[in-house]
């Protein structure tokens, strides 16, 4: 049953506002990809800024429910993947080689940035603390330590640096530990959910927080970023590498993706029926060329992933879910600014004078898909 809009507000076509309506939408969308290895997943996982374009009217009354639902589904996805890794002994093959290469480039770039920032922050300090947020196999921390090996100042610097690797998977952290044990760096690992860990962390616990390929799993970034700001020392830094895309901004674009994934016409028709009124081709006005390229890259990445899945031996692998919290890098910059971080290039250069690198870097020329950025607390 559709609710009536509040007085004074123009009615939206079939907009959903109540908890029941949102659950009903998710249930209906389940049928579109039922039985398939790649599923749509819950609309609650979309970046909160995209919900309106999917007909979800985010209000003060339903916000907590939508937030809780997005958390619940992200946690379940993560647990399914960790369970699969544990039982199958292997990671679920969810990414293309191109994406893995981009992630490696981001890790390398971030390692360099973090070391340069630490060179500024070390003055007058005995120990510097760096949090690798959702560290997975520790790739980012290891790249940071390797960069440091190639420069005398940084090698010296790392004697004062303690890394803390945080992840929900003990197995992944054990992989990280085994490699880090071969280096001379000081580190600890902790198996905990990121929100719980941050809540239990004191103000100013870390000089630098770094995170790779994680924020697109957060539908609501505002409160999360404010918590991160709290746990970073004043003058410290947040270094983020992530994948950015506007592929989820419109059901029309997702329908194109579903078609690319060879979904039958009947199911595509069902999707269009469910998303009636929201499935029109969106305007590209205000969208930059690099954002368009990023959206296209993201779509191609999923199509390639689907092809790769067909060649991998099946061992009751968990499904992959499409709808996620990807946003554009501009939207990310806005979120950081609203959370109280400093993102201005000139001010960052003054605050971290030893940072030789650009504080916002596109990994692929002309594309917003993989971007590394620095924000100052």
């Amino acid at each position, binding site marked *: 049953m559709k609710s009536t809009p509040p007085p004074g507000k123009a009615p939206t076509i079939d907009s959903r506002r109540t908890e029941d309506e949102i659950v009903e939408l998710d249930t209906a969308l389940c049928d579109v990809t039922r039985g398939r290895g790649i599923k749509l997943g819950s609309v609650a996982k979309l970046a909160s800024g995209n919900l309106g374009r999917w007909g979800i009217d985010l209000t003060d009354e339903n916000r907590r429910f939508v937030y809780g639902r997005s958390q619940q589904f992200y946690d379940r996805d993560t647990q399914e993947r960790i369970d699969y890794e544990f039982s199958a002994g292997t990671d679920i093959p969810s990414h293309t*080689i191109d994406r893995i290469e981009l992630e490696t480039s981001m890790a390398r770039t971030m390692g360099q940035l973090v070391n340069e920032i630490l060179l500024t922050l070390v003055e007058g300090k005995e120990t510097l603390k760096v949090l690798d947020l959702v560290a997975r196999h520790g790739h980012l921390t290891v790249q940071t330590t390797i960069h440091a090996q190639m420069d005398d100042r940084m090698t010296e610097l790392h004697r004062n640096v303690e890394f803390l690797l945080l992840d929900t998977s003990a197995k992944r952290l054990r992989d990280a530990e085994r490699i880090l044990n071969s280096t001379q760096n000081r580190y600890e690992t902790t198996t905990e959910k990121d929100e719980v860990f941050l809540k239990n962390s004191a103000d100013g616990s870390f000089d630098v927080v770094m995170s790779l390929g994680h924020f697109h799993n957060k539908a609501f970034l505002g409160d999360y970023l404010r918590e991160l700001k709290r746990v970073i020392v004043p003058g410290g830094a947040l270094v983020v590498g992530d994948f950015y895309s506007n592929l989820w901004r419109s059901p029309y674009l997702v329908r194109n993706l579903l078609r690319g994934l060879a979904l039958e016409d009947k199911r595509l028709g069902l999707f269009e029926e469910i998303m009636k009124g929201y499935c029109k081709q969106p305007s590209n006005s205000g969208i930059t060329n690099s954002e368009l390229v990023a959206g296209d890259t993201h779509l191609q990445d999923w199509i390639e992933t689907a092809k790769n899945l067909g060649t991998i031996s099946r061992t009751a692998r968990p499904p992959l879910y499409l709808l996620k919290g990807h946003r554009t890098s501009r939207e990310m910059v806005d979120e950081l600014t609203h959370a109280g971080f400093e993102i201005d290039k000139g001010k960052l250069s003054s605050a971290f004078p030893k940072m030789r690198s*650009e504080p916002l870097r596109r990994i692929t020329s002309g594309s917003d898909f993989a971007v590394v950025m620095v924000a100052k607390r």
Partner: protein
Amino acid sequence: MTIETTRDIAQLDRFLTSIFEGLPIAPGTICRIAYQFLENWGVRVTDENRGWIERRSEKSYIREWSSGTKETNDAIEKATREADLGGNSFLNTMVATTAVKALLEMYEPGRRIRICDVGTGAGDTISAILDSMQSYRLQDIVKQCSFYLIEPSVDRLRHATRRLEKHGIIERRVKPEFIGMGTTEGRIFGDLKDGIFDLIVSSAVFHHLSFPTYLNRINDKLTNDGALIIGDWYTTIWQHPAYMVPVLQGIGAEQERIVEFERFFNLDTHNIRELDGKLRLEQKEANKRMYDYIFHMVREMKTLKVRSQLLLFEAHESVDDRLGKLERAGFEISVERLRESTVMKSIVSGFEPGGERPYLSLFRKKHDIAGVIPVKKKVST
């Protein structure tokens, strides 16, 4: 017993294949191992058989690389992680940061810098160099670079070139050159003139080349002030058949096969102890890690849908062996003399204090399994 004829060597290959019959991995030809170890396996390299052995080795490696898939690459990556080795991306980072140090010394406005990547694959090493250059805001240097990518697989070369042309450091109007070069019958540099390259890099490639002839070619193509930066994996487990016994045991060979193998090569329990007695602690640790890697890789391969074409034997050697080959091919390996060179100035400061080898260990000398060797041409005074 020592053999020389190609017929006998082929017979040895058949024997080794039979030992590994039914096991998750085939050995490949004995010609794949580093040539200096062949004598320990009973094969004498002569002027008559050398060409045949070299070609047999090359064909085997090229066939293996051509049949590589994402599945097998993922299996290798996972095995390196499980063996606490991380993976080639870390080695590439180290090669890249070393290379950028050399480039900074070479740079002059307007000077074209020619960089060659031997064994480009998907372009990972050049990508790592571009990442490092982007980090140091070296767009000006990139514009003056010509990148020569050497790779036997045309598909991979195409992928590498496309990928690198889109790198974030590339500005639309002025791009560096990317020149793809395939290889035919081991002629790595084709018809390129001597003294053309300012910098030659290679990562995780040279342990696939059994004979050091390529080092002479590399030396010819390098300028007198140029630098060669090699990232690679090092171990001595192919040095002697005695080191294969733990491998056979670890991958599930039946006792009878192992006994047959030991009898054939006249092995006894003293062999490994004797061999290990000559190794440093870091080398023994490296061998342990290589065993771990092989066992994990074999385990991963069992899970693959399609039987992998990956083969066991490789041309790994010790760092010292590699340095010896470099010296004989005309490279300067004296740390003291490298310190005097402009292009090596900032690189050599990263060597271990009091160290006698131009070697940068990836794992801070806890084990000798992976690292970077930066050298230059020996210039006669």
